[in-house]
């Protein structure tokens, strides 16, 4: 969304809408509350300058009062050590261009962590906005044996305190009831900002501890479920084995569980192509629809089940509270390459797509570490590379098992590991040259384990799936049409080399021939700049145009036409895949410079070329 959209949006809002900011520490349930109140209908806002993202949604109170809600990144204190923390603080201070300052703050806090976090709300009183404290997850606090006297707490803090369980309608009733009254006071100006607090953090903390001492008591010192789970999950040896197992199962599952769904989608597209084929008269329109659109889009959409399974794991690890544990477990390994465990989270997101990964690097406080993480994130195997892997592995790697493991799954795992290994090497090199600086530590709260809210979880999965399908519509559909045209004309062409596509491809083919790539691959790599998986849809279209028999699957086609060394070189190329323009665009935005996207493209291209060349020649030397 552009900044003009935001301007229009804020101008068109009626003056009487109450603008509330959800502020609070990470993992206190802001997003659950946001989804519950607004029904999850959110607008993601980007700001001019640095890209900054947060969600904005609307809902009506029972009395009809309209509320606009901002879901801000989690923040401790008011210093803004990392980029995303600064966004939250700038938003409540009214320092974000093009965004009106909120009228008031809903400060959310995980009730079971009130003793550690209470000073945050005292600091937030200094923002000079009307503010109330929402003590969330009261059910969990009670289970942990915590008793909170909210009347005492409220009078000691000098602000209103409401308890809630964001994920239950009954748990939000108090809040909605209070908001009806409070919104009138805020909009009429009778709700005043609270008195400011002392300046130094030490004094504020001392006051916070005094307040919790009077209003919070632990009636039982029960060992929490989180503690018991952590004995295993954070165990130095078992914990690491468990993490490795989870990652391995994740990649195996992407293969083993998706097969029936993929077959169904493939079958569906074949039926559609045949049906349309019989309806349409022979000619260019039929060719465009069946060879271009259906084949091209279908070749990518069949990978939807795999994408969904991959995200099902990542979102589950995030929502359950495991992800921060993973950061803890891998911290020492990350330290070896000059980063810290925090970088694990953006890097794991990059397995879905480098774009959210690059953006998630904002949570890294140290600028040099953030840059290093951004530069290596394209080496994580993103979901757009899976279609390529699936196609080539499916066509060239025989079925079968090695021990208990699916052979194809093992190859995929190997490719993923190759990316990770090179990323580690590159990070080590970068940290000693480009991004040299002193080591930074890890400081991260390990949240209590939570059962993910099914609705939020499914919504997250749905959003990821729709992003993939939308890409198929916006990028792959037009790309397929263009490729179909280039590969079909001039009409007198009898071979692919004589078509427009062949002419364009032959320009770069000399560069790619030494690493074993044929003309079809050369052609497919150009539109793959738009999105990596377009390589697959392009190959599908090129071969569909060329071959009379459109029923034949792409996989069996290329397995009969490519040599094994070529196929392996193509896989090696895609471990690095210096293609995706969107990745370079987001690197440009997040680093605010042209230097880094060009640098990233350059180093990835060199690596891809070298890896593909080595693979090709080694495979040939072994007589494959």
């Amino acid at each position: 969304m552009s900044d003009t959209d935001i301007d229009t949006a804020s101008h068109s809002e009626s003056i009487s809408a109450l603008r509330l900011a959800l502020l609070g520490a990470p993992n206190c349930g802001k997003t659950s509350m946001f989804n519950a109140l607004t029904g999850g209908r959110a607008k993601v806002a980007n700001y001019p300058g640095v890209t900054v993202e947060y969600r904005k949604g609307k809902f009506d109170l029972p009395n009809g009062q309209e509320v606009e809600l901002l879901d801000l990144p989690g923040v401790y204190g008011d210093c803004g050590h990392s980029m995303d923390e600064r966004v939250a603080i700038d938003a409540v201070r009214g320092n974000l261009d093009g965004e009106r300052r909120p009228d008031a703050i809903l400060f959310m806090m995980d009730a079971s962590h009130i003793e550690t976090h209470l000073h945050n709300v005292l600091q937030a009183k200094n923002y000079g906005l009307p503010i109330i404290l929402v003590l969330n997850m009261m059910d969990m606090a009670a289970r942990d044996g915590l008793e909170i006297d909210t009347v005492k707490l409220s009078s000691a803090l000098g602000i209103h305190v409401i308890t809630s369980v964001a994920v239950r309608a009954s748990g939000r009733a108090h809040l909605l009831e209070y908001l009806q009254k409070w919104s009138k006071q805020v909009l009429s100006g009778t709700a005043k900002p609270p008195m400011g607090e002392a300046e130094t953090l030490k004094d504020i903390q001392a006051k916070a501890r005094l307040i919790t001492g009077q209003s919070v008591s632990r009636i039982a010192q029960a060992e929490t479920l989180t503690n018991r789970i952590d004995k295993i999950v954070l165990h130095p040896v078992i914990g690491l084995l468990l993490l490795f197992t989870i990652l391995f199962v994740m990649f195996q599952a992407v293969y083993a569980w998706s097969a029936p769904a993929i077959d169904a989608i493939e079958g569906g597209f074949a039926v559609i192509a045949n049906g349309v084929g019989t309806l349409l008269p022979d000619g260019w329109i039929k060719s465009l629809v069946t060879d271009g659109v259906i084949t091209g889009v279908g070749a990518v959409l069949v990978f939807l089940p795999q994408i969904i399974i991959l995200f099902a794991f990542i979102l589950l690890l995030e929502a359950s509270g495991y992800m921060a544990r993973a950061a803890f477990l891998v911290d020492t390994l990350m330290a070896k390459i000059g980063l810290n465990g925090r970088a694990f989270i953006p890097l794991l997101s990059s397995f879905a797509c480098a774009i959210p990964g690059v953006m998630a690097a904002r949570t890294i406080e140290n600028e040099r570490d953030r840059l290093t993480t951004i530069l290596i994130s394209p080496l994580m195997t993103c979901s757009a590379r899976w279609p390529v892997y699936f196609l080539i592995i499916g066509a060239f790697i025989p079925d079968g098992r090695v021990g208990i493991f699916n052979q194809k799954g093992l190859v995929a795992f190997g490719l993923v590991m190759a990316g990770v290994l090179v990323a580690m090497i590159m990070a080590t090199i970068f940290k000693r040259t480009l991004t040299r600086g002193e080591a930074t530590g890890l400081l991260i709260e390990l949240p209590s384990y939570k059962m993910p809210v099914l609705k939020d979880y499914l919504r997250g999965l749905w959003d990821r799936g729709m992003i993939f399908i939308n890409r198929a519509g916006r990028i792959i559909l037009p790309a397929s049409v263009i490729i179909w045209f280039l590969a079909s004309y001039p009409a007198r062409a009898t071979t692919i080399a004589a078509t427009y596509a062949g002419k364009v491809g032959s320009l770069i083919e000399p560069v790619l021939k030494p690493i074993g790539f044929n003309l079809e691959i050369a052609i497919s790599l150009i539109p793959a700049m738009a999105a990596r998986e377009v390589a697959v849809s392009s190959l599908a279209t090129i071969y569909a145009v060329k071959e009379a028999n459109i029923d034949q699957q792409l996989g069996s086609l290329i397995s009969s036409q490519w040599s094994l060394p070529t196929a392996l070189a193509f896989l090696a190329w895609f471990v690095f895949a210096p293609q995706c323009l969107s990745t370079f665009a987001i690197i440009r935005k997040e680093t605010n410079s042209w230097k880094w996207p060009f640098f990233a493209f350059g180093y990835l291209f060199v690596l891809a070329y070298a890896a593909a060349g080595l693979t090709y020649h080694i495979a040939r030397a072994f007589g494959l």
Partner: protein
Amino acid sequence: MTQTYISNVINLSTLPKDKMAVITGFSIQNQSLETRLREIGFAEGDHVTVKHKGLFGGNPISVSLNGALIALRKQDALAILVREMESKT
């Protein structure tokens, strides 16, 4: 509630696992680190226990603090000064 200190002031990185200690202050070498430690919740008078240590060199550590669990590296834990206490249990 009487409490017995059973050590002099040490830093958190040298506190043995599962032993309770009370925070007495912060070493003042690194102001920005102190701010970050305070913001995430460490303060004078708080009780802390080291719950887990990493596989490699016992790094990083996780520290239980008023029901929260916080992960940090030993070199950052150097900045937190504690005195070990007689465990209540």
